[in-house]
């Protein structure tokens, strides 16, 4: 009942950014000990998520039509 009231209309890009952000923060926190290392790892992970996502998107573009 509660979750059915929560509507999350996200675009493709917003979904990807949100997904990458949440997972990167979790990876950073789990994978490193020091706060500075965690931040660096999370930022690097986030960047790679976006890079790979956009790259795969462009690779699939010719087949989308």
């Amino acid at each position, binding site marked *: 009942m509660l979750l059915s009231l929560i509507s999350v209309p996200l675009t493709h890009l917003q*979904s990807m950014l949100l*997904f990458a952000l*949440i997972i990167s923060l979790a990876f950073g926190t789990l994978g490193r000990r020091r706060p500075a290392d965690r931040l660096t790892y999370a930022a690097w992970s986030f960047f790679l998520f976006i890079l790979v996502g956009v790259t795969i998107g462009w690779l699939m573009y010719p087949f989308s039509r």
Partner: protein
Amino acid sequence: MQEPIAEQPQLESLAVPPRKDERRELLALLIGVAGWAVPGLGHALQKMWGRGLAVFLAVGALVTLGAGMRGNLFTSRGDDAFATLGYFADLGSGCFYAVARAFETAGPDVSHSTGDYGTRFLATAGVLNLLAALHAYEAARGRKA
């Protein structure tokens, strides 16, 4: 005559550690199961507060967003192998799976891409929680974490 006396302390010293290891292994297993059942609890029990909170928030956010996007929350009555795999992935969220099931009344809507993304969010929440539970288990075993 001297050899048996010399061997006695060695045997005693060898007999004690395995019992400790067994207890530690059991405790680590319980921590791993706790970490799966309640996201972040495995780390919290080891006083890794930051990691526990991060896992709880990350898994909670992914489940909330996934359900809000009307993703497919798989059940045990899957029609094919993918549905069964999806069920196991979703089940990885522990108690959040039960909460999402209890509150989900509108059902999934994967006719739109948003619903499809929601399905991935829910599956990722489960897999992330399993990863975190494994991390907590390894940390409890004394591995570097």
